[in-house]
């Protein structure tokens, strides 16, 4: 397809899933008997249609951008959205090469997860509601990615936040799950507040220097005007990214978000929504480029998150919680990359991570499905024999996340570590060492998960013979994603290994040439070998600990218990933030401001009129003569006043 027709079709990408969501929602609301019509087949078909259409158009965008010699973005303005004096926001979509990459994997992984959900959610009574939310989520995510200005991006940003809340609290009759949904929403709001302030700051700063606009193309060409506020503005935007992409200190919502159905965790909390923060930083790269300080802070927060989450991952026993912390940890790596200015490396990790993490989550879902909602890995074991497809795909994704060549994770993680190694001198080296250590931790806790779950003896309450592999509608997506986990890394083979890093050169028109230092290939080989050997060390330790010795479930003690309790971060937040806030609201805002001052004033006025009315009504005797006395007295008084006044 040529460029013009793609430009006309850009709207389809976000709107196709939106139409799907509305269609499913309306069909259910209008169906006479709940649950009878539309049938599950119809709903499943409708739900997959939207994402599939988006994927096809996204493919067209990708091809159009790849073919055309000029690299200007594909742009479509739908209508003028906000028009207020000089302030104007268009509802417009724009796709450059960065967007195209995001579009491709979001729609691809999204579509696969939709198919998987048909199998996974097959027996759930909220089947149609689930698919309606899932479609809505995808639509919001695509608006976020495609929006041509900050405000439209923020619309998508809030949209994914809302859908995340709806989907995490999907089984809302379980109170703990409903609370997890609320937590995700509230923590995200804190970040969003920073994002909004950042948008305001950018707009007002530009306004001082003439006409202002929030279009990305305008911002990119006028970025130099933002130089005085670059650090503050970029950090405010990063606050938003911290919430959405689960960075310290706002990461606490993501582990709890595992309360949602497993496909939700795979789609939202691994492949798409949590990557929005990384994408946003990459999108605003011209702003982050202006402030080296905020770049260093971003990378610092990233590495701290990567390490803390990895260490917590050591002690987790819920299969999904381990994956959740590993997601937080991997997101940390992405921020290390974008903080260091290696945007294409960060986006590359987003890209590969989407495949192997979705594969891991869906595999975990398949395990949970086979064991009848059992999530505790201590009650699993030996599942590789019983779940051959799930097990094999899980193992592939595991090797990918550990960073074993030639699986996808190796290339992206290595590129991140390499670019950090080359930036900032000593600070970069420290980050690199920490990142290397984190990679070893990742290998260890992921191997622990794999060994306990898939090797050893069966410890589940389900009889071993009765454990069945999931149906093809679930295993085929797993196979596709596992293939992706093997293959997508080859887009980014570094030059040192004889590749040409197609991924980085694809993104060069967006981020510009990344000036890599003139290190010899030899150092790059050493760095690579180090990260691979660290991964092997992690796997070996886990092998000795969990395979050589038979695994016995025991009460964790000491550091293990500390890690299992997620370092008591939730308790810390409760003591430091939530309790003071609650007591402030209850004792000051409620008891003093509301009850004493506001209610007091309202009730006081009512009381005053009632008391004064009670006094005045005594004058109304009802006898005509009394009124005459008043009348006479009034007249006499008036005359007196006139008399005195005349004097």
């Amino acid at each position, binding site marked *: 397809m040529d460029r013009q027709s793609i430009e006309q079709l850009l709207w389809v990408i976000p709107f196709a899933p939106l139409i799907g969501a509305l269609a499913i929602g309306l069909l259910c609301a209008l169906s006479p008997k709940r649950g009878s019509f539309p049938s599950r087949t119809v709903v499943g078909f409708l739900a997959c249609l939207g994402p599939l259409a988006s994927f096809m158009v996204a493919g067209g965008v990708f091809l159009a951008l790849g073919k055309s010699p000029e690299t200007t973005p594909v742009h479509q303005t739908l209508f003028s959205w906000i028009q207020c004096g000089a302030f104007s926001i268009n509802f417009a979509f724009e796709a450059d090469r960065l967007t195209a990459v995001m579009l491709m994997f979001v729609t691809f992984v999204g579509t696969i997860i939709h198919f998987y959900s048909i199998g996974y959610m097959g027996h759930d009574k909220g089947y149609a509601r689930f698919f309606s939310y899932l479609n809505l989520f995808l639509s919001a995510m695509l608006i976020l990615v495609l929006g041509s200005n900050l405000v439209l991006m923020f619309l998508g940003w809030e949209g994914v936040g809302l859908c995340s809340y709806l989907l995490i609290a999907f089984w809302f009759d379980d109170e703990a799950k409903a609370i997890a949904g609320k937590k995700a929403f509230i923590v995200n709001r804190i970040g969003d507040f920073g994002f909004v302030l950042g948008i305001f700051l950018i707009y007002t700063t530009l306004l001082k220097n003439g006409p202002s606009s929030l279009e990305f193309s305008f911002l990119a060409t006028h970025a130099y005007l933002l130089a005085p506020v670059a650090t503050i503005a970029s950090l405010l935007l990063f606050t938003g990214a911290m919430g959405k992409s689960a960075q310290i200190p706002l990461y606490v919502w993501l582990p709890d978000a595992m309360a949602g159905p497993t496909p939700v965790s795979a789609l939202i909390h691994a492949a798409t929504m949590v990557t929005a923060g990384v994408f946003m930083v990459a999108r605003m790269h011209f702003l982050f480029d202006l402030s080296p300080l905020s770049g260093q802070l971003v990378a610092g927060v990233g590495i701290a998150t990567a390490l803390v989450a990895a260490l917590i991952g050591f002690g987790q026993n819920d299969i999904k919680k381990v994956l959740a912390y590993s997601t937080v940890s991997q997101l940390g790596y992405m921020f290390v990359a974008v903080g260091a200015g290696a945007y294409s490396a960060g986006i590359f990790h987003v890209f590969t991570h989407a495949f192997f993490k979705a594969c891991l989550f869906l595999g975990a879902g398949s395990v949970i499905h086979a064991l009848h909602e059992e999530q505790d890995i201590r009650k699993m074991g030996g599942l590789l024999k019983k779940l051959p497809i799930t097990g094999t795909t899980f193992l592939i994704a595991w090797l990918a996340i550990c960073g074993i060549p030639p699986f996808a994770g190796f290339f992206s993680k290595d590129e991140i570590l390499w670019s950090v190694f080359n930036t900032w001198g000593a600070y970069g080296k420290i980050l690199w060492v920490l990142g290397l250590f984190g990679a070893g931790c990742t290998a260890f806790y992921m191997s622990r998960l794999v060994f306990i779950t898939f090797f050893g003896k069966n410890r589940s309450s389900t009889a071993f013979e009765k454990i069945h592999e999931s149906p093809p509608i679930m295993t085929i997506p797993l196979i596709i994603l596992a293939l992706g986990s093997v293959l997508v890394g080859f887009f980014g083979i570094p030059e040192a290994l004889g590749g040409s890093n197609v991924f980085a050169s694809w993104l060069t028109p967006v981020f510009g040439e990344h000036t890599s230092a003139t290190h010899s290939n030899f150092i790059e080989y050493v760095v690579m070998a180090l990260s691979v050997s660290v991964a092997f060390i992690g796997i070996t330790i886990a092998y000795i600990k969990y395979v050589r010795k038979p695994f016995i479930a025991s009460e964790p003690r000491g550091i293990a218990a500390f890690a299992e309790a997620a370092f008591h971060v939730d308790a810390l937040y409760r003591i430091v933030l939530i309790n003071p806030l609650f007591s402030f609201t209850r004792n000051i805002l409620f008891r003093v401001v509301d009850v004493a001052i506001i209610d007091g004033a309202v009730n006081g006025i009512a009381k005053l009129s009632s008391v004064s009315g009670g006094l005045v009504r005594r004058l*109304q*005797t*009802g*006898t*005509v*003569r009394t009124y*005459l*006395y008043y009348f*006479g007295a009034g007249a006499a008084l008036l005359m007196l006043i006139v008399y005195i006044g005349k004097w």
Partner: protein
Amino acid sequence: MESSAYIGLAITIFFIGVFGMLVRKSAFLFLMSIELMLNSANLAWVTFAKVHGNLDGHVYAFFIMALAAAEACVGLAIIVLFYRKRRSVILDNAKEMSK
């Protein structure tokens, strides 16, 4: 023209009317007291018209007479209805307005 005698008379009649309204309980006497006050006002108008030598006061006196006639009419009708309802014309018994 010496007017003080006329005005004095008008004031006297007026206060007789006021006094009557304040002390008598019968609705008829109440009405009659009002007529007295209106007439005292008429006397004052006419007196001042004579003093100032123009006709305005006379005109007003006529207006007030018409008004007094209408008022007597309505007042008597009210008294009749009042009597039918309560079998009495004592105004102090009508205290519903305080309730």
